[in-house]
């Protein structure tokens, strides 16, 4: 299957495009805050940041409603925000507070909001696969044209459960979309060192249509998402998207506090931070080129998003710690 190569997003209004850009910006700025706050020890756990991959979550989730399902990864803040998760409660969760979306019991790796179809980030690589298949099975039995999306990484593509998931989803024509975000690193190892063949090719023997896209190109990713979601809604079964991207940050923030050596060159990282690679800068350029935003508008948007992030941090910081008794509930219904 080929990506619908419209190089524009003519079908989207300027207002909508700005909204999508703003969402990417919000993810970026939340993550940047979490990066600096990690160094300050502002919250208890570790965070895996989505910086550099924002176009994928935002473009895919633009095709979804709250009735659709997503399952995510340990690098899950972007998916949470893109699917409509509340930034304040996400931030409070990461800060381990009572007002967190999981009442401080899940933290960064488990931010979830089932009411909005967000089955959560997941601490097990490939752990979202079964959840997404189950939701897709439910959706297919409900017959209300709901879809389910599993976001996973190149690391998870090497888990055996992916094969199980591809087999049953194709066999049962489930309304499922596989989104493999190939950010090139499986934890601290370049994926090419631990992976044979091309990931996208793995779906082909199962009869699953595949799309291979530049995941840092918002337009291309948006078009691929549109195609895949449409197939799922029309009961045509799963689609497999491999979105090539780059993990700009480490596997986990502050990793050089425990790693004994580096595992990639800074030159390589810098290359992906450049205007022609970074997904946010590229989308921004597109909006400039089409006169949808200008410097003044960009500055206003930045200020607006800054204040949203600031408010979420203030909400998190000023929220109470969980009641001690809450450690003992929610295990059993």
């Amino acid at each position, binding site marked *: 299957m080929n990506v619908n190569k419209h190089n524009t997003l003519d079908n989207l209004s300027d207002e909508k495009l700005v909204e999508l850009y703003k969402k990417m910006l919000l993810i970026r700025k939340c993550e940047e805050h979490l990066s600096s706050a990690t160094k300050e020890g502002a919250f208890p756990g570790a965070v895996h940041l989505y910086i550099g991959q924002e176009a994928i979550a935002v473009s895919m989730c633009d095709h979804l409603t709250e009735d659709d399902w997503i399952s995510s990864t340990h690098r899950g803040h972007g998916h949470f925000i893109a699917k409509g998760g509340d930034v304040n409660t996400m931030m409070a969760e990461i800060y381990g507070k009572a007002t967190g979306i999981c009442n401080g019991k899940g933290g960064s790796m488990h931010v979830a909001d089932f009411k909005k179809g967000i089955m959560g980030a997941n601490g097990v690589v490939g752990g979202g696969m079964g959840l997404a298949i189950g939701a897709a099975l439910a959706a297919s*039995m409900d017959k209300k044209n709901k879809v389910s999306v599993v976001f996973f990484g190149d690391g998870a593509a090497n888990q055996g459960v992916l094969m199980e998931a591809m087999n049953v989803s194709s066999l049962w024509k489930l309304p499922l979309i596989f989104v493999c975000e190939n950010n090139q690193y499986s934890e601290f190892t370049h994926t090419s060192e631990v992976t044979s063949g091309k990931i996208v090719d793995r779906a082909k023997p199962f009869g699953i249509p595949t799309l291979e896209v530049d995941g840092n190109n918002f337009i291309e990713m948006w078009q691929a998402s549109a195609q895949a979601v449409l197939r799922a809604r029309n009961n045509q079964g799963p689609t497999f998207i491999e979105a090539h991207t780059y993990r700009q940050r480490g596997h986990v923030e502050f990793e050089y506090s425990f790693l004994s050596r580096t595992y990639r060159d800074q030159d390589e990282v810098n290359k992906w931070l450049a205007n022609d690679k970074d997904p946010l800068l590229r989308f921004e350029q597109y909006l400039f080129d089409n006169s949808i935003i200008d410097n003044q508008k960009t500055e206003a948007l930045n200020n607006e998003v800054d204040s949203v992030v600031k408010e979420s941090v203030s909400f998190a910081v000023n929220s109470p710690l969980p009641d001690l008794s809450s450690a003992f509930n*929610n295990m059993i219904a």
Partner: protein
Amino acid sequence: MSRMRMMPAINSALIEEMDRDKKVILYGEDAGISLLGQTTGLQERFGKDRVRDTPICENIMTGMAVGAAAAGYRPICHLLYGNFIYTGFDSIANQAAKLKYMTGGQITLPIVYMAVIGGGRSAAAQHSDTPYPALMNLGGIKVVVPSSARSAKGLLKAAIRDDNPVFYLTAGSSGKPEEVPDDDFILPIGKAEILREGNDITIVAIGPMVLKAVEASLVLEKIGIHAEVIDLLSLLPIDEETIINSVKKTGRLVIVDEARDVCSAASHIAAIAADKAFNSLKSPVKRVTVDNLAIPYSPILEDQVIPNVENIVNTVRELI
């Protein structure tokens, strides 16, 4: 009342619950043809959508139960043999048992995972395990171990209606026919049953070991030892009250468990007794369990390692 064996009793519970609630779905390997008889005729009755044959892929099977339950269904995941719980253990331990807690109680996960446990059929080590000790250590789930046709029906109906993941583990053979209630018969999860009353010693037995414990009590009665036999039925939550009250009455406790001894259900029950009935104990608490061995194939060897009536009688006689 109808007279039936365990597998038909399970079958009738499934039919009744699937008739009652359209959200109950069942899937598993060979669910349609039904290898062991639990799901016989269900596919014909409820269709291939609600009674689904799956590929052999336990990891996705256990995981998709969680997703389907979160999305509003009440899935029954049929795992055939208890050993295959290990194959699907990632999603059981990391998702099913924890997702509710990790997300601050956002969801309920009404799932039944069913499998047969224990040896005695020359099925060898990979089809004869008793894996509930690992499950008991997960929290976030329930574990029930029916021992008869009657308890199999009552506990399955309770498990399907429960809003938590429930492991439903029975013997692989159908046992003897017995009277099973026809009406909407439900046994509460977490409640043990006293099968025989006695004042001399308490014998707590689990699942496939219950019948052997009852037989042992009959042998003991002939020599004047009156054992109280408790059919535990649920392992998580466990009915501590019934155990403790009995031990306080008899002062002695033997636990019969087909799991391997280390960290078995038996050792947990022994710890409960030591903790909560210490002053009533007149003798050490004894466990009749499987040694730290795999279950062998040859019947003569299998009989050697799985607790039998003689083991139970001899253990009791050591104490009295």
